[in-house]
């Protein structure tokens, strides 16, 4: 069985939490004592049914306000697949928390209220999905029960989303599904009330969509997280380089280059605890042994010699700013790229996005939740790939060394001139 991580994005009151509650409820993933707790909490909908939304609002402040502040992770499985849902806040103020939930997702569900259609927040969420390169999108037109299950309303919203968003953002795989999370139409069961809809219902689509592991990317990368050195009598010369293969795959006897030093050697042995596999593929946490003694430490990256990454100290990147303090170009920040941490400075702001209209803005200050393109200068050279081609080795975070907070998400676009 494999696993799909997905997120739900939508504006406040579009019914995200209700949709997740419905998925969990209709797949029998809510246990009796949880249901009992739900009934005890006494929040009912107008029609007397229990409020599924409070299943996901785990914090007091969220229940008080009826909004989602932070990402909640929920788990369920069917016979076909195991799922991890990131229930992310829709409120503009919590965009950074949505990015947190979205960064590991293989699929995004974007909710649209059938009565409201495409709104600014829909564009904002879709833009983030495209920026983070989430491979699959499902547009769920929700609250179809409130518009008499009208085919025209659905068709109009689909046409609108295609023209205003999908085409402009070049979203590749987009499915459109009319649902009512409240009543359960087309969530886990097909709806007779929308006989006109011929596509798959939501769960069926989630169970069958292809998942990506990074294996299909043909450049092979493994950052070194930890050097295993037992230093005992019988393992005196043992020196293993431990890390997770980000993309591609290493096979025994592959020619391996260590960056940034550039030394090349041969892959001698792969260890996975008590196993000695002949291949280490993307996603595996392994320990590698090399033929030659080379100085390698945490922060270095091992790559297949014939597939070199870009090595540069000047990088063009998309930046999502996540701190309440605005970006300060006079400051030095810390940049964490895989296991490597280096000092850096923002040397140029190229533009900022007006996300709601997808227009570029110039000479703007980066404030909380702003997104745009910058040039960054690092103290040490980074060995990276372009995010669009290899997400796993194309992203980094910025840390403010005064507060230690994670203040920015970076997606590398190119080496800058």
């Amino acid at each position, binding site marked *: 069985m494999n696993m799909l991580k997905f997120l739900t994005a939508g504006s406040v009151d579009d019914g995200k939490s209700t949709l997740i509650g419905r998925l969990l409820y209709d797949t029998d993933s809510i246990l009796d004592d949880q249901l009992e707790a739900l009934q005890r909490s006494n929040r009912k909908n107008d029609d007397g049914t229990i409020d599924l939304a409070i299943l996901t609002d785990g914090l007091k402040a969220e229940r008080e306000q009826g909004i989602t502040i*932070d990402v909640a992770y*929920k788990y369920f499985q069917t016979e076909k697949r195991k799922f991890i849902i990131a229930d992310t806040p829709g409120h503009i103020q919590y965009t950074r928390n949505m990015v*947190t939930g979205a*960064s590991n997702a293989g699929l995004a569900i974007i909710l649209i209220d059938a009565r409201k259609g495409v709104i600014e927040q829909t564009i904002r969420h879709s833009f983030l999905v495209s920026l983070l390169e989430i491979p699959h999108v499902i547009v769920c037109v929700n609250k179809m029960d409130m518009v008499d299950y009208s085919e025209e309303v659905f068709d109009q919203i689909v046409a609108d989303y295609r023209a205003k968003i999908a085409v402009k953002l070049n979203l590749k795989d987009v499915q459109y599904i009319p649902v009512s999370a409240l009543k359960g139409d087309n969530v886990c069961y097909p709806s007779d009330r929308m006989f006109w809809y011929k596509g798959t219902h939501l769960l069926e689509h989630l169970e069958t969509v292809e998942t990506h592991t990074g*294996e299909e990317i043909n450049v092979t990368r493994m950052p070194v997280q*930890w050097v295993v050195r037992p230093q005992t009598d019988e393992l005196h010369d043992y020196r293993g380089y431990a890390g997770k293969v980000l993309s591609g795959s290493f096979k025994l006897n592959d020619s391996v280059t260590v960056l940034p030093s550039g030394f090349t050697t041969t892959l001698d042995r792969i260890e996975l605890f008590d196993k000695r596999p002949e291949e280490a593929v993307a996603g*595996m946490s392994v320990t590698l042994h090399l033929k030659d003694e080379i100085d390698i430490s*945490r922060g270095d990256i091992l790559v297949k010699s014939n597939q070199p990454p870009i090595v540069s100290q000047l990088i063009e990147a998309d930046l999502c700013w996540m701190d309440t303090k605005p970006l300060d170009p006079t400051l030095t920040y810390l940049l964490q790229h895989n296991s490597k941490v280096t000092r850096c400075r923002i040397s140029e702001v190229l533009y900022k996005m007006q996300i709601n209209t997808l227009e570029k803005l110039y000479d703007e200050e980066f404030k909380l939740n702003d997104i745009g393109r910058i040039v960054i200068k690092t103290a040490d050279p980074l060995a990276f790939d372009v995010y669009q081609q290899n997400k796993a080795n194309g992203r980094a*975070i910025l840390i403010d060394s005064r507060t230690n907070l994670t203040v920015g998400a970076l997606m590398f676009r190119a080496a800058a001139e």
Partner: protein
Amino acid sequence: MTKPDYLDELEAEAIHILREVAGQFEKPALLFSGGKDSITLVRLAEKAFRPGKFPFPLVHIDTGHNFEETIRYRDEMVARIGEKLIVGHVQDDIDAGRVVEQKGKNASRNQLQTVTLLNTIARHQFDACIGGARRDEEKARAKERVFSVRDEFGQWNPKSQRPELWDLYNGKIHKGENVRVFPISNWTELDVWNYIRRENIPLPSIYFAHERDVITRNGQLMAASPFLNMDDEDVVQRKNVRFRTVGDMSCTAAVESYAFEIDDIIAEISASNISERGARMDDKVSEAAMEDRKKGGYF
């Protein structure tokens, strides 16, 4: 090469997280309760660091009211894997007057262990504590980051958690703060059991069905023991039970069970309509019981 299944994915993710802890912190520790989740963590640490030593000790906060089977398992395991164990005793804090034992029928030392935990962290200056909490356990935990920063009072502030992006974990902290790290955040109870079965990991015997003297209190089966304040109303019965979660004897309820083997347990959990935390008295105090305890420094 066959595609890795979900247990391989979860394992690789957890090993990655453990190695990040080793790489980023000066003095980490692995909090070990003797329960199945922390036992799973120990196996994952073996996978992350063998044939080397763990770059951290195991730390057990002993309430003094533990099941003796758990303590025996702990000591045997530590001897087998050859790693260092540090024990913080709640009794020491009671004796020193830093905490006061609860009174009444439902008295438990569960709350008191937070103080001992924070004192142990301070005494050894641990900057990261690895724990076996899972997000599927409880709705406040569903909100928690993998690297969860605690202030100098051990407090969790759910409203200002750091963004956590991709698999890039930011472990930078100020002196006095520490990070709670949860490598098996994304595992469910069933995942843990399936993993234990796959890896053939030994467990304390109380997880398996056995005969035991129990009393029924607040609708739950509690192990009859000197640690429970019992009176004439409590009727001791002999039953076939097992424990789904292992905590303090005064707050962990048993379930009636004939699951003698791990396959029986997995079948039982798969068919059960009650969550694991349904057997923990401490979560039933109020709707936000767990959130409140975590804000106070509880794991």
